[in-house]
């Protein structure tokens, strides 16, 4: 796989996605080779043009910088049948035929936390395989996107004009994870409104949070009272707003430049290492949880759990007491 065999790479990705024993073993072996790629998350509401944007970004990285690009495109699974239609490739046909680009579609498979874990594993495989840039595309809809954003060094949140209400909905969660805001479809009417809305949200939200991530180069925020509160404003990263029209490739060079600036900022401020650390910490935590749960299930017979549930239904046992009794049962 390290030698660049695409079939082995594809097979390994499947094993990692399925969390099979071979997949796990491979991840152990590959881990020393990881940590080199720039991981870029791309998220946003459906229909904002994420796939087209990823297509353009990948094209740009290929043409301008000759970097190897991997794309992980996540689409939702049906919660009822578990099936999925993964259609992101439709927008990425410009990339086919280039052996230095590898696109992998992935269904969310609807498991709690499992998606983030599977994605993390697949990203590690691409990283070890020597891809320079790894683009992770997800539908911005909730917690799993936030988890996946934690994987990435740089997270782009994609908006489009005319989705005003969506912006309102997204403000609370998704906007905070943005390192760069992209207004795609910027040839549509209403761009100014979208931009104004985003700008004002940023001005309100950012000084209060993530102080250490701000940067001084975009100085639109009135910084009078900020300076005193946060010390040196020049080391802060304030998410820039980039306008693009991905169907025509407009604004893409500027966006790529912003991504590069962010990477540079992360390296200089030491945030790259800090993020890497936080990322590994989260990953460790997830794996520990899973391992503990697996051990618990091994040790405690399902029958016993059923008994305890019965007691709870009868109100003989509160959930907290139930946990206590089951955990005690384990330690025997």
């Amino acid at each position, binding site marked *: 796989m390290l030698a660049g065999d695409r079939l082995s790479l594809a097979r390994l990705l499947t094993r990692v996605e*399925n969390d099979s024993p071979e997949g796990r073993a491979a991840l152990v072996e590959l881990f020393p080779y990881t940590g080199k790629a720039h991981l870029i998350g791309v998220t946003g509401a459906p229909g904002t043009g994420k796939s087209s944007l990823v297509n353009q970004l990948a094209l740009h990285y290929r043409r301008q910088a000759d970097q190897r690009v991997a794309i992980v495109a996540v689409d939702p699974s049906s919660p009822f*049948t*578990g*099936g999925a239609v993964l259609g992101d*490739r*439709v927008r990425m046909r410009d990339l*086919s035929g280039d052996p230095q680009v590898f696109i992998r579609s992935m269904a969310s498979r609807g498991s*709690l936390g499992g998606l983030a874990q599977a994605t993390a594993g697949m990203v590690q495989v691409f990283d070890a395989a020597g891809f320079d840039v790894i683009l992770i595309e997800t539908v911005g809809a909730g917690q799993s996107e936030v988890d996946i954003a934690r994987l990435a060094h740089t997270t782009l949140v994609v908006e489009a004009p005319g989705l005003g209400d969506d912006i309102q909905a997204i403000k609370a969660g998704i906007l905070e994870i943005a390192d760069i805001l992209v207004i795609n479809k910027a040839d549509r009417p209403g761009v100014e409104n979208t931009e104004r809305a985003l700008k004002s949200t940023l001005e309100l939200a950012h000084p209060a949070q993530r102080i250490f991530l701000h940067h001084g180069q975009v100085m639109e925020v009135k910084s009078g009272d900020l300076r005193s509160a946060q010390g040196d404003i020049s080391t802060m990263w304030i998410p820039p707003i980039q306008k693009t029209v991905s169907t025509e490739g407009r604004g893409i060079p500027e966006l790529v430049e912003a991504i590069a600036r962010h990477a540079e900022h992360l390296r200089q401020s030491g945030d790259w290492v800090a993020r890497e650390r936080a990322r590994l910490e989260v990953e460790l935590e997830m794996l520990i949880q899973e391992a503990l749960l697996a051990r618990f299930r091994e040790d405690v017979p399902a029958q016993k759990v059923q008994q305890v549930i019965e007691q709870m239904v009868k109100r003989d046992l509160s959930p907290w007491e139930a946990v206590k009794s089951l955990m005690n049962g384990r330690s025997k």
Partner: protein
Amino acid sequence: MSENKTSPEQSRRIRVLVAKPGLDGHDRGAKVVARALRDAGMEVIYTGLRQTPEMIAEAALQEDVDVVGLSILSGAHMALAPRILDLLKANGQSHVKVFLGGIIPDEDLPRLKEMGVTGVYGPGANTEDIINDIRGALAEKA
């Protein structure tokens, strides 16, 4: 959740590439099939219209699919199908089952089967049959 994780369906979901090679622009059939397979719990990668055999084989490789479904209504199936089968083989994916849908004259069926096409479906085919045939073909392999 833990039970789900260990069930065979979950540990190895059937992955299908649905592709339209050639120049005809009628993707209704492909979309109907894609949806039916999704509802049967499979993961369907849809690639869109006007794909070259090379693009299809490359996508099948990257996505590590078990099945490739081709929809051809242009009459070019005798040229496109063998080309795709050859490319799959050249890429080391001879295990991938190829299914064909569209307007395919009966007299072409024996030769298509001979080339290695697993199933052929025309207008009026039942999606249930397609689903069962895919499951059957993959179970045989395992």
